[in-house]
């Protein structure tokens, strides 16, 4: 009995050592990226996986973009935005209008990256308009402002007949492919990672810790908050554009508070202030949603319950404030050691 359990322990140790070896090997990352890209082309090309699985993979990708970008505001910065679905809607509508009404069908697949970028840019501009009044004063207005924003976006879209009003836009071409999703996920994660590991990202963290102290340590907190919100909105718009071109039909109802809640669940499930957490949260949530599909309406009861239980027992989520080494820039990992080595070398040469 005892031998068995120690065998078990050894086996676990071995596994965790292998795991540590893999995740600390940073040279593996570019290799994995290339393999991922090749696979994303090969899977639909050669029908390696069935259509349904490919669709789920695309949703996982879109959800990763959504959760990583919302984590910037709700996790890293410690504010509370419920407006992510609204920015998604902006990106979705701008891109869908471009591909259904403006760009000829023959050109659309070639211009799709630009279309997605335009969706993101539109969402970023609207994000700036929301950020300016929200961050004028210190305080917790963001939840209320973004809730109001979400309602305004919805009723605006419902009342503009040229874009279909409450009926929405049908017949959108399915332009969101697995490779495009993969590429946009990599861009989103890379850019957000870069932001987090910069003076602005450290500013964001310090605002979450203590905003007044942060200001007194020369951080321009208003600028940092606006920047963070705009970047977050941009990627919500990108995700919205990808979403519109896989769903092939959008209406104001698609981007309601439930959609925002879904993204909140992914962020808090995976873990605040962590890119790895956001990816994990999006992955678990998307798969769980599919597995629980037979439950129908009960899903809507179960999901919020999951969130409540999580908030009580693991308030920071699975990865809360911890990061996978793959996502930390190499220099950040070795900065202190480099300094020590340099100092030792100097001390030796002077003595």
């Amino acid at each position, binding site marked *: 009995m005892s031998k068995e359990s120690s065998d078990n322990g050894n086996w676990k140790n071995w596994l965790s050592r292998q795991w540590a070896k893999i995740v600390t090997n940073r040279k593996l990352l570019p290799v994995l990226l290339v393999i991922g890209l090749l696979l994303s082309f090969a899977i639909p090309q050669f029908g390696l996986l069935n259509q349904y699985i490919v669709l789920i993979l695309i949703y996982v990708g879109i959800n990763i973009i959504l959760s990583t970008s919302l984590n910037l505001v709700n996790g890293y910065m410690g504010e509370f935005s419920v407006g992510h679905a609204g920015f998604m809607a902006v990106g979705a509508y701008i891109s869908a209008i471009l591909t259904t009404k403006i760009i000829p069908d023959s050109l659309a697949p070639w211009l799709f990256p630009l279309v997605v970028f335009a969706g993101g840019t539109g969402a970023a501009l609207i994000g700036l308009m929301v950020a300016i009044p929200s961050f004028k004063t210190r305080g917790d207005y963001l939840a209320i402002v973004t809730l109001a924003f979400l309602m305004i976006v919805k009723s605006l879209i419902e009342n503009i007949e040229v874009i279909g009003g409450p009926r929405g836009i049908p017949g959108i071409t399915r332009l969101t492919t697995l490779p495009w999703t993969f590429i946009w996920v990599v861009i989103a994660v890379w850019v957000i990672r*870069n*932001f987090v590991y910069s003076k602005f990202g*450290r500013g964001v963290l310090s605002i979450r810790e203590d905003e007044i*102290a942060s200001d*007194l*340590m*020369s951080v*321009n907190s*208003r600028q940092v908050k606006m920047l963070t919100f705009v970047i977050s909105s941009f990627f919500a718009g990108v995700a919205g554009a990808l979403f519109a071109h896989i769903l092939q039909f959008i209406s104001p109802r698609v981007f309601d508070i439930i959609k925002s809640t879904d993204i909140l669940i992914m962020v808090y499930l995976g873990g605040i202030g962590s890119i790895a957490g956001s990816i994990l949260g999006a992955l678990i949530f998307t798969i769980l949603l599919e597995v629980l599909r037979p439950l129908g309406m009960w899903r809507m009861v179960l999901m919020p319950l999951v969130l409540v239980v999580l908030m009580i027992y693991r308030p920071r989520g699975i990865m809360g404030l911890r990061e996978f080494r793959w996502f930390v820039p190499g220099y950040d990992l070795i900065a202190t050691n480099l300094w020590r080595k340099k100092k030792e070398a100097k001390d030796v040469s002077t003595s």
Partner: protein
Amino acid sequence: MFLQAKGVTHYFGGLCAVSDFNLNLKPNELIGIIGPNGAGKTTIFNLITGVYKATKGSITIDGIELVGKTPNQITGLGIARTFQNIRLFKDLTVLDNVRIANYSQSKYNPIEALFHTGRYDGEERRIANHAMDLLAVFKLQDYADEASKNLPYGLQRRLEIARALATHPKILLLDEPAAGMNPNEIGQLMEFIGWIRKEFGLTVILIEHQMRLVMGICERIKVLDFGATLAEGLPVEIQNNPKVMEAYLGEGGDL
């Protein structure tokens, strides 16, 4: 004139926390502000650094008006501070605490940050090395990767001073830096303050609750009581001032 305060008055609702405060600080001076609890000392630091906006009066540095400026603008003009109740970024590493204070010294823009350009790389290296050098001055280099909340109390106090210095200040405001220390540690701290002042060419304002601590190192002392300036002068003059004795006796004679 260097740092100057004229007729600075501040109300919290009906409570007058500071009334008609005046100050003329010369470069490289080390002055002390003392007074019983609730006298308005911390409020004066909050007014100078822009945390609160003075109800009345003017505060200038090199002739530039500070009242109405934001805290980060004021820090940019060369005023840094520590806090009576330590306010480190607790969950962040010791190194990050100092790097954050380098915010306005890091010369790259958001676009360069988003794409980690060459300038970002160069600046990040410079900042990290500068932060480590500063930590080494404070003998904190071995804790660089530790979360700041895990540091012992005395080291947290030191880290707060290091973090303040990372903003490259001309004037350093220290709010009861000796709070919670034993007499031995206090002696070392006072020596240390004198040393960093010389080393970094600083002008220092030191708030202290217990009078005897500042007697040794301050060139000039201001005594506050109920927001009003009770006395001002050389340490010996303050020590023998009957009004000061009275104010402190009310406090239980904590001289």
